[in-house]
């Protein structure tokens, strides 16, 4: 196996990691654009999705169990998100930094609850037969490149979610409301839009997507109480890079972070990835502090 299959493999890895990041970051970015708050318990929505997938597979063990798990995880995480928004985030929306701390408290509680319910070691979700194989390039200059079906499945899910979400925002009445509140909260409220309801729906949508991401994650490794933590910090960096509340920005930033992490691993030790990624982010904001997609508007904060 030469260099090319290795590099192509890492690029493919980068894309599949990016699709996980995009699923994890979309909810964060949507709510951040709308309310300027970050939910530190977002990682636990991934964890919740993973455990819900595990539970669904206990009930529906067949090859389609994983497909059944997706709506369950989406709805379950969205429901928890609704409770979180209505009880906590709503109250703190004027204090974004305090929201970070309070939702971190929620994250601690959820992790500990998972530890007590499912054990600290974690549970396994076995990929169904139709996902449990890999495609290998038989010849040519990419000979030996192996692509597992689960990774392709993750890509497909990410594309489907992105597509559905952009349709929702661009074509539906709900999307119109979201865009209106995103652009000018005060004005939207003045025209009779129920801004609070928009906040709540977007937050639930975001946590629901994180739940979906959790199902996908469960295919890659065991679901542990702190599985969310390992994905949520890169997802935060995606939000930093992405620009305010932009779907396109979030997608591009996820790709940048995913590809950067994957390609850096060709050259250096895996453990240095975090450090280099951080340096990359700090370097990036030297050139584009407003993020990948800049919303240039007249409404600058005073």
């Amino acid at each position, binding site marked *: 196996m030469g260099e090319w299959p290795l590099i192509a493999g890492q690029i493919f890895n980068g894309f599949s990691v990016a699709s996980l990041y995009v699923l994890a970051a979309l909810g964060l970015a949507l709510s951040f654009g709308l309310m300027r708050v970050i939910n530190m318990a977002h990682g636990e929505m991934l964890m919740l999705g993973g455990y819900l997938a595990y539970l669904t597979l206990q009930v529906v063990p067949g090859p389609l169990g994983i497909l059944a798990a997706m709506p369950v995880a989406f709805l379950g995480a969205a429901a928890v998100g609704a409770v979180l928004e209505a009880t906590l985030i709503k109250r703190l929306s004027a204090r974004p930094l305090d929201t970070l701390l309070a939702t971190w408290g929620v994250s601690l509680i959820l992790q500990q609850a998972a530890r007590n319910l499912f054990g600290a070691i974690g549970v396994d979700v076995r990929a169904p037969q139709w996902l449990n194989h890999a495609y290998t390039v038989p010849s040519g200059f990419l000979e030996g490149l192996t692509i597992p079906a689960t990774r392709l499945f993750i890509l497909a899910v990410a594309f489907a979610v992105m597509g559905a979400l952009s349709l929702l925002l661009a074509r539906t009445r709900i999307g119109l409301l979201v865009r209106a509140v995103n652009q000018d909260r005060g004005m939207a409220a003045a025209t009779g839009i129920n801004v609070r309801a928009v906040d709540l729906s977007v937050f639930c949508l975001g946590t629901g997507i994180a739940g979906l991401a959790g199902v996908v994650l469960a295919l890659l490794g065991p679901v542990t109480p702190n599985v969310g933590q390992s994905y949520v910090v890169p997802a935060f960096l995606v939000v930093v890079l992405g620009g305010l509340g932009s779907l396109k920005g979030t997608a591009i930033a996820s790709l940048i972070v995913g590809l950067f992490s994957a390609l850096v691993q060709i050259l250096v030790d895996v453990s240095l990835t975090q450090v280099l990624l951080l340096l990359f982010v700090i370097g990036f904001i030297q050139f584009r502090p407003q993020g990948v997609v800049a919303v*240039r*508007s*007249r409404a*600058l904060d*005073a």
Partner: protein
Amino acid sequence: MNATAPASHIGTIDPVTNLLLAVDGVTVDFDGFKALNGFSLTLDRGTLRVLIGPNGAGKSTLCDTIIGRVRATSGRVIFKGQDITHLPEHEIVRRGICRKFQTPGVLSGLSVVDNLMIAARRDRRWWCSFRQGVDAEEKARVADILETIGLADRAHIPAGQLAHGEKQWLEIGMVVATRADLLLLDEPTAGMGPAETSQTAALIRRLVGQHTVLVIDHDMSFLEQLDARVTVMHQGQFLKEGSVAAIREDADVAAVYLGRTKEEKHG
């Protein structure tokens, strides 16, 4: 420079050295919307100018561009003969321009007097903030301004507790306290009653001479009390300039304020 350069009010002073600010063909493009479109304006030292125009004419954007809050897509801003178009905001302010914002920008957590003290500091570099003691001249200046804006007896209450009109005055006081040569006052009478408005007009007229003042406002009675030259903006461009009386009678100005139908396709 175009025809907006007015004849000097003071008369015989050389117009070249007397020039304080020149906005030279500035365009500001917000994703295709030109808030300013090749706009030019000059201000002489010690003069008062009023800027009017319908909503969206680009008045606030002009102030934003001068102070560096918004960057010109093309064109230049020349202040005291130097190009300040790309300087950082605090650097522009240190050169002698200060702005009052539309919504009062006082530091609500600090007391009235502290707001003014921060504005009155002559040396605003960070390491100077560790120096002990208060400069006597700054102290006198602040006490003086407190009297002028009528807040001397409320000097030690948090600025956030002031009434809306008082906040406006405090902010004007802060802008004056910086010793800026050029004061940009964006809607200084917003939310004021007729009596307060007259007092504000009188205050501004007293500032002229020692400072150059650019005022944005809509209130016609306020403009008449200011009795200054008026520049009219429309859709990011220069429309007219003249005395308050002349502008009042002008058919083009009336058209942009009243009948905007024919321009709407540009929007």
